[in-house]
């Protein structure tokens, strides 16, 4: 199972923002979605998920709203704010830059 330290610093925020960009989701669904899309490579532990969600909410990039889950329970859904959308764009850009740079270095080394 991937520990949070396996994720490159700051990428958890990017993953969360990207995941809720499509539609508002609650915590469990966010974790599940990241796990599924990454083909079970990325597993987010609850210990890092919820503090991250709260931090993003505090910074005004996510906003919480009430909703009903697929199983019919009431839950707190997180949605992207306008500021969050901008932040997502910024994070994507820096991710691209970083991954390109790393890619260059890694290929060079081969």
């Amino acid at each position, binding site marked *: 199972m991937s520990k949070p330290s396996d994720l490159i610093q700051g990428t958890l925020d990017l993953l969360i923002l990207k995941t809720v960009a499509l539609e508002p989701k609650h*915590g*469990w669904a966010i974790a599940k979605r990241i796990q599924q899309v990454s083909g079970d490579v990325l597993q987010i532990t*609850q210990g890092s998920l*919820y*503090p991250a969600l*709260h931090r993003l909410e*505090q910074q005004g990039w996510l906003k919480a709203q009430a909703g009903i889950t697929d*199983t019919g329970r*009431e839950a*707190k859904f997180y949605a992207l704010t306008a500021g969050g959308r901008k932040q997502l764009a910024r994070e994507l850009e820096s991710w691209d830059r970083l991954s390109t740079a790393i890619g260059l270095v890694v290929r060079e080394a081969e």
Partner: protein
Amino acid sequence: MTRVLDVLRLRLRSIFRGGKADRSLRDEIELHLQEQIDEYIAAGMNAREARAAALRSFGPVAPIEEQCRDTRRIAFVEHLARDLGYAFRSLSHQPALVIAASLSIAVAIGANTTIFGLFSQLFLAEPSAHRPDQLVQIRMGGGSHVSHRQWRDLNESGALAGIAGFSIEANVNWRGPDQSVSLVPMVVTANFFDLLGVPVARGRGFSTVEARADRNPAVVVISDRFWQQRLGSDPNVLGRTLVFNGEPYAVVGVLPRMLRSIPGFGLAPEVYLPVSRALAPDIDRSDSGLVQLVGRLKDDQGVAAGRAALAAAARPLADEYGVKNFATVAEFVPVRSVDALGSLTIVGGFFLVLLAAVGLVLAIACANVAGLLVSRATVRRREMAVRVALGASRRRLIQQLLAEGFWLAVFGAAGGLVIMAVLGRALSLVSLPLPLPIEIRPRINTTLLAYTAVLTIATTFLSALAPALQATRRSQLTGLKQHGPGDGGRLLSMRRMVVIGQMAIAQLLLVTAALFLTNLARARHLDPGFDIEHTLVAQLDFVEGRYTPVTRTAFLDSIVERIRVLPNVTAASYAYGAPLTVRSGMTNGLDLKVADTGREFHASFEVNFVAPGYFETIGMPLRRGRGFRAGDGPGSERVIVVNEEFARRYFPDEDALGRILHLPGAANTTYPAQIIGIAGNGRHRTLGETQRAAIYEPYAQWRGERRVAHVFVRTTIPPERMVREVVDIIGGMDASTAATVQPMHDMLAFAFLPSRLGAGLLGTLGALGLVLALVGMFAVVSYSVSRRTPEIGIRMALGASRIAIMRLVIREAIALAFAGIVLGLGAAWFVTSPLADFLVAGLSPNDPRTFGVTAMLLLMVSVAAAWGPMRRALRIDPAMAVRAE
């Protein structure tokens, strides 16, 4: 103590941690587990296994909760607490700064809270009563007061939970140990204490049953002040008998010290008496205005519903009395509500002027503190740069500098409250020459504390925000290097702007102060039309029903006869009213008819009833004709004296002397009265009034049943020295009559009161503003000189004369002051116009002389403030200065 701390901790937690947020987090986690369990069950586990597996995969819950909490509160609360702590420590190394800044703020906040405290006590404070929010002040159509029967009928109608009545107009005479004293009591209906629940400190209020008017109630509730000052805090006061108007009353209760009376406006009657025939002989007349009404709404009754119920109850009563407009409820508003402030006219306006003035004083003080903080910022440049280098954001630095400003404001506010308490104590010792018992003292209560808190926050931002923005400007923080020669210029220019603003505000305050001082001077020199320096006045209050008009005249005649033979007395007389006091006589607007020509005209004029020798005694000249004689009595021809203004206004083309006027008498009749004399003009009600017309009638021909008279004595020695003898003569003839004997000029204190108060308060504020602005000017010129020390040194080295150096420094002060003065005068031109209402006629708020004189004063003071720094500039040693460079 620990309990208090616990409560405090819980409070803080509920505010900052937010129990609600915690709960929602727990819900969130629970939901997460449920979803996980569902998934495991779908995968084939049983419910117990699934729950255990879910919990296992989730891991420990508590740390997650704690971490989430951290992200919520860390941003704000922890930073705030840390900043406040850091700011406190950092300030504790700067005692001089703290003292200077806090003192400056304390004086200004003290002035603000005192004025606001007085204002709120006078106009906003709820009365001391049970559920004051249920109380409404009521006025029925046709007048402010209703008769005893009308009150009873309304109260018993059941429209409201109850209605009480009170009146604070008539005086009673209390037989004190030495002499009779005239007091203004609160005369109240029997249900007053039961219905309103006015608190009583000792004993009790009188009950509805015992105080019923038809039982001739002989009970009294006294104020704390009366108990302490008149009865020497007698511990056995309950049950003690006090004599009012010659009748004994038993004390049943003493009111608490800080009582806010039902009518408000600081009114503090000394005694509360139940209304009765003894106090109000016309109690049975259905049309006499006896009491004002205050009602209590029923528990579930709103204001609108109460008003409707009262109107419905009043309609049949109006028919019964045959008073048509009684059916309308003219006023029905909660006591002390904004609606009830309709009566807040000139006094309220004056307070608003004061509040604005103290606000400006605070602005000047804040500017001084800002100046101090700016200088401090230059010293701390390195510290700021280090912190930026270590990763502090500009926002955090600003927040931290604001925290320092906040502490200064808090110290200042605390000092301000102390100043207010001291001022309040001093104020309560001053007895104002007012006709009614007024007690005003600012008190510390929640309203005042809230106001102080707002001032503290405003002070924080006004004094610390600009310096904080300035100090954290990026260009200021570029490196750890010592500041070079070029910077600091911006700081200086900012401080100069601040000083210009201070000068402008000081100029505005000075103009206002000067206006009110000029006003006082003018009021003093207004000629009242009679002599106030050699006249002694005795104000007499008779006990109800003791004298008929005939015996009253005889009594007054015999007093005057005895006084006339005293040594050092040249004349003595008496009259109903005394000019320029609250009881100056009556104002009439009547249709009059000239007997021989038949000409009718409408006249408005003052009426006073005066005895023979009145004009000579008060030193009012008789221009023509004669004054009254002993022969002008009840049986003889009716005669009158008019003043010059009356003759000029109503007899413009003919000679008024000798004319016979038909004056309205009792019950639609008129009586002819001949004008036998024309007296000089005088002031009647206020010194600033426009000249009024007046008619004087012989006292002996007057049938009015007034309980007041004034005896006038003209002396050759200072009138103060005759007081004792006059008191003894009156007291020796009738101990039940209260006599207040004073020199005329003391008696007129009331007439001077508004201009005196205005001059005193605004003069003080103007002086305060001037001093604070002076401090600001001194600081900025000092700073400028120390910054220019190398420049001055070079100039000296190159041979600049002392005069040139002086000019260099003084020119700066003058330039700054001049800019401020121009701005201030411009503002004053617009702002002071509404002040005309408070000034004597003929004094313009935009008086060019006032503007000129105050501008000169401010300019001179500015030069004086620059004097110290200038001398320091002259002492600069060129060699040292250049080397330091």
